[in-house]
């Protein structure tokens, strides 16, 4: 028994130590927050005007809505393998809520944001989901990265009457799982058909494609759709094989076979580091210079350029995620909301702005603006307001609109890489 006591003492001591350093951690966040305040406000004027401009058009009867619920919960992966995407979400969420509160919030009340870490682990995410639907003053959930977490928690939010706005879930069953679910990115089927058309336009008749796809829901979809559509368009699929994203680092076995088949285009469906590995290892294995490398929208990140910028020449990367790079974004092809968002983000945070942050910002800003319009007590009305919101200037695409209730539509953008930088591709 004496031993058991020593355990309890050790445990309480450790917990208090952590509480100390835990709050220390918060202070660290707070200290950084005011810093944000100081320099953020300078450039903020521009941003909030834009947000105001967006909201000005909204009808005036704001006062009549009731805003008893003012909290948004965001389960995102702050730790674990997807923590880099979790960080992008966190930054975008905090930035959007700050801008929204400065431009009046919900009828004068400040919106409260609660960020929770689910490690993109299904068990923890479902625990959190149950905790959130119990929380009486949460009116919407903006978050859940990754299809497996999204698909596992969607039924819980749906049955708990809690709208779920998921910035990056492209699982094709997600939208139809419930009427309170709003994916901000289009489902894989919509996106891939668009990608196939774009790629075909660049490569032309009879081009031979090799597909390497990750064993994720997106990868499996991409493979099945491309193997069908590409021959329809007039191309030819010469090779199609899968790999386990994150675990398979060595692609040389696959690439040796692919190179032997002399394809015109190698499409890799996976994370940005999978695409980078394919390119680097293919170059090492002596792939011919005129082979076109292609990958999804996830590649439009600074990390991708760092990994294989100088080797990724002669590539076409196509997806609905926007590419926030000064040398690509010019006045005509990008709205100034997007440009402002990028400058705001890059001034405030050390990490470079990327499409994930853009999607997440759209997700939460659209939710907040809709909430301001229809109030926060009726989830169904809130979701209807979100999907039918007029005049919202999206930061992640020229024109974001929803078709048949909650299927998001975004314009495709395609870029190539020229001496280490993204450049718009003409086709």
């Amino acid at each position, binding site marked *: *028994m*004496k*031993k*058991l006591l*020593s*355990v309890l003492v*050790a*445990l309480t001591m*450790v*917990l208090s130590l*952590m*509480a100390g*350093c*835990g709050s220390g*951690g918060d202070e660290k966040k707070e200290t950084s927050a005011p810093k944000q305040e100081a320099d953020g406000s300078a450039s903020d004027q521009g941003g909030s005007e834009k947000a105001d401009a967006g909201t000005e058009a909204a009808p005036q009867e704001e006062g009549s809505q009731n805003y008893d619920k003012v909290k948004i919960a965001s389960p995102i992966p*702050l*730790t*674990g393998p997807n*923590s880099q995407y979790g960080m992008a979400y966190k930054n975008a969420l905090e930035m959007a809520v700050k801008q929204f509160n400065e431009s009046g919030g919900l009828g004068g009340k400040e919106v409260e944001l609660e*960020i*929770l*870490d689910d*490690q993109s682990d*299904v*068990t*923890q995410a*479902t*625990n959190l989901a*149950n*905790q959130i*639907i*119990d929380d009486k003053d949460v009116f919407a959930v903006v978050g859940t990265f990754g299809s*497996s977490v999204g*698909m*596992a928690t969607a*039924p819980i939010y749906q049955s*708990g009457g809690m709208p779920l706005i998921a910035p990056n879930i492209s*699982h094709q*069953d997600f939208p139809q*799982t419930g009427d309170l679910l709003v994916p901000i990115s289009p489902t894989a089927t919509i996106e891939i058909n668009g990608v196939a058309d774009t790629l075909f336009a660049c490569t032309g008749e009879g081009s031979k494609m090799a597909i390497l796809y990750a*064993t*994720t*829901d997106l*990868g*499996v979809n991409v493979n099945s759709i491309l193997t069908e559509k590409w021959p329809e368009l007039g191309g030819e699929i010469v090779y199609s094989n*899968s790999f*386990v994203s994150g675990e398979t680092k060595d692609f040389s076995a696959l690439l040796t076979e692919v190179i032997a088949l002399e394809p015109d285009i190698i499409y890799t469906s996976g994370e940005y580091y999978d695409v980078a590995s394919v390119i680097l290892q293919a170059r090492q294995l002596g792939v011919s210079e005129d082979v076109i490398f292609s990958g999804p929208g996830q590649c439009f990140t600074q990390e991708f350029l760092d990994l294989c910028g100088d080797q990724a020449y002669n590539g076409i990367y196509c997806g609905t995620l926007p590419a926030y790079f000064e040398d690509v974004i010019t006045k005509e092809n990008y709205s100034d909301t997007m440009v402002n968002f990028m400058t705001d983000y890059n001034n405030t945070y050390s990490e470079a702005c990327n499409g994930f942050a853009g999607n997440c910002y759209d997700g939460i800003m659209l939710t907040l603006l809709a909430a301001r319009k229809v109030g926060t007590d009726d989830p169904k009305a809130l979701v209807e307001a979100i999907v039918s919101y007029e005049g919202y200037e999206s930061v992640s695409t020229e024109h974001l609109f929803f078709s048949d209730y909650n299927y998001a539509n975004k314009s495709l953008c395609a870029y190539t890489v020229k001496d280490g930088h993204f450049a718009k591709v003409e086709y």
Partner: protein
Amino acid sequence: MKMVKVFFAKNLKWFTILFFGLLAVLPFFMTSNYGMRMLTVCMLYVMMAFSLNLLTGFLGVMTIGHIAFMGIGAYTAAILVKNYHWETLPCYLAAILLSGFFGLLLSLAALKLQGYYMTILTLGFCEIVRLVEINWESLTRGALGISGISAPVFFGIRLSSRRSIYYLMLVLLILTLLLIWSIINSKAGNAIMAIREDELAARAMGIHVFKYKTIVFVLSAMIMGLAGAFYAQYMTYIDPGVFTVSASLNILIMAIFGGLGNLLGTIIGASVLTILPEMIRFLAEYRNLIYGILIIILMLVKPDGLLGSVNFKYIRQQASVQKENGGE
């Protein structure tokens, strides 16, 4: 302090009945979904820790791929419910039989292998099962996972409310505990522990070692299969990403922290380590780092787990001897 232990050991039976009575009554006081859910998940992990303790604690076979059986059970139930609309009881039966079969396969290997070679075999087995789940798309829909698994249905009655699911889990847990407890406190339990202590001596005492090893492997696999079947219908969505080696290591840490070879210790260990990550959620990104440090500290403070070296039967017996000799 010794008196407390002796008192506790003496009426352990009453304490257990009291404990499970409390669990049965709790839902009426607890309204929050989160609370109910945490308890159900806690009981699920306790059930799995029981199964692992039976294999590692009592038989002494160290396994780090135990979650594979849960995966097999989960996918059996999910496919049967989703595609063939079976009722839950036949699903549970199918899940139990299938995972039991794979448990039998592993016990055949355990005939030849000892120590770390057996451990690595379980690691390999777990990885192969996971890869089959990922790539056999026609059966398991691979990485798309199986979604929309309906709630359990017993003889036509659908258990959809949180409370009914909670009670289902409670019943499963009690059945598992009774099964393991009755086996451990019997001649089979003695034989199993004898094999753990010294296999050769056990053989010399007339114990059919292979028979008992198979019984333990098959039983612990079946319990995991049952837990998997429940998990599938409880989560309504499963995908291969859940049944990884690191998940098996989590259960192993729970069993060891609770105390190998001690059922009560397993209950405490599994519950504490299920709730702990939720408790330190306020640490956000540092949570995992602190969890790792905590595991090290707990292993250093209590190497053989909370109740690892405690055997209540022996405490009871030694106390009765002392009473007999007038406690001089």
